[in-house]
């Protein structure tokens, strides 16, 4: 096994993409999983899986985002268990209103949160969300409806 510092012996293209998108992908994964630590695992797994097939990837950013979503889907069991356990209030951004709504977002079931993140944060249309989450399009609307209704109730 050989350990290399990023940038030293990686192809420049991969190093650049990693440096450029790692933060963004961790942000997306954090929103999807509700956990910064899990997000980091997800992103590392995505890059690990992507490197061997790097030469075949046309749009790296698009590919990596989709890979993050898919990887998070495979963590469903972990995530659900996580959600069932206590959550403490966390100051993440330093903005109380944002931190509070983030706390509520994290409490949503994983699929409901995923739909909102994909819709609102990534601005994906429902048919693409349905494809990513492997569910019918009406289910996407149902999940979004339920998520928003739940958040509305919690926020009021």
């Amino acid at each position, binding site marked *: 096994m050989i350990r290399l510092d990023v940038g030293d012996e990686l192809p420049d293209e991969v190093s650049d993409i990693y440096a450029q998108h790692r933060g963004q992908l961790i942000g997306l994964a954090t929103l999807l999983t509700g956990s910064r630590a899990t997000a980091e695992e997800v992103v590392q797994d995505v890059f690990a899986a992507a490197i061997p097939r790097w030469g075949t990837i046309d749009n790296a950013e698009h590919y990596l985002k989709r890979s993050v979503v898919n990887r998070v889907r495979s963590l469903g069991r*972990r995530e659900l268990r996580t959600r069932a356990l206590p959550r403490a209030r966390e100051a993440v951004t330093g903005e109380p209103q944002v931190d509070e709504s983030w706390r509520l977002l994290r409490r949503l079931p994983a699929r409901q949160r995923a739909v909102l993140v994909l819709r609102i944060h990534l601005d994906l249309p429902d048919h693409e969300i349905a494809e990513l989450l492997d569910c019918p399009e009406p289910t996407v609307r149902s999940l979004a409806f339920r998520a928003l209704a739940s958040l*509305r109730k919690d926020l009021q």
Partner: protein
Amino acid sequence: MNQTLKSDEELIALLEHTMRRVAQAAPTMRFDDAHHDNRWMATAAAAVLVVAGATRAAIVVSSRHDSAPVDTSAVASEPTSQGSSPTSPTPDTVDPSAIGSPTVTVIGVTDDFPSVVPRPDTFDTMRIMNWDNLAVGWEFNAQGEPTNSVERCTSYVSSFGDSWTSTAKTDEAPSVLYARLLDDTEWQVGVYCTEDGAYLVQVMRSPNYVEPTVGTLAQNESAESDPSPTTDTVQPGLPAGASNIAPETIPDVVPALVPKPDTFGSMTKMMFDDVAVGWEFLEQGEATSSVERCTQYGASFDDSWTSTAKTDEAPSVLYARLFDNNEWRVGVYCTEDGAYLVQVMASPNGAGTPGG
């Protein structure tokens, strides 16, 4: 939060702002217990590329979770991220010693393993599941033949007695052929078999567990001592945004195959973005009779419907069950305050589409 959101637009605007800020903050989130009682310590150290062999590579971001969070709930909230998942990369994809987590220790079965849990003796390995240096459970792994993996799961599950509730887990990836949770309110055992023959058992504290037990998982007593949150205000499902729900009459819209909850006084149509997504029946009854109403209605579903208990609701939800006939999904909820709710929506397994 002391604010009233008047419209979906306001709510979405808030969420958009929240997501943007969280996503921006995530890569540099830090843990500062001098000012707050619970933070992540996410000191992402240098990213390291691990190349295993000539053709295999993995990026490992060595993030050390320095010191356990002060709030023990944070410790308990992430336990399984150290456990292997049936859908995680298999060991021959990425060298586990490279990705590995220094907090996971491979040991033999110890005397601490709870005696009430049937021991899966046929497993090859057992690991103590750790989170931030705190033991949170046991994980048993075996790699068998794809042809008999489910049989191993069912055989093990049959060894649990009547004191355990057994619930199928339906939110797994398609590759997970068998997923079931067993719970005796003290321990929860997850049993998983995948199409590639992997066989996994995880033993952790039950979410229903309250009192810490001295002598088991001793390292983690503090993490276990915080019971799951109890909220007496949570309403299951869909308390509706009143502004976009239009009243309908029951016989005209509810699919014929769905047993009609005739005892309800009112029904509303659930809308999202001007698209009908289902029907909701809601009634506020007496607390003493709400569960009976749910069970009575639940009994009206015939064998063409699968019936699954929903276990992820708040403690105030005394009855929560999903009925599904692959076209429609009906959620039935009764709460301790007497609320009685039935929701009819398209099944995730089919193509039922509410009119609208």
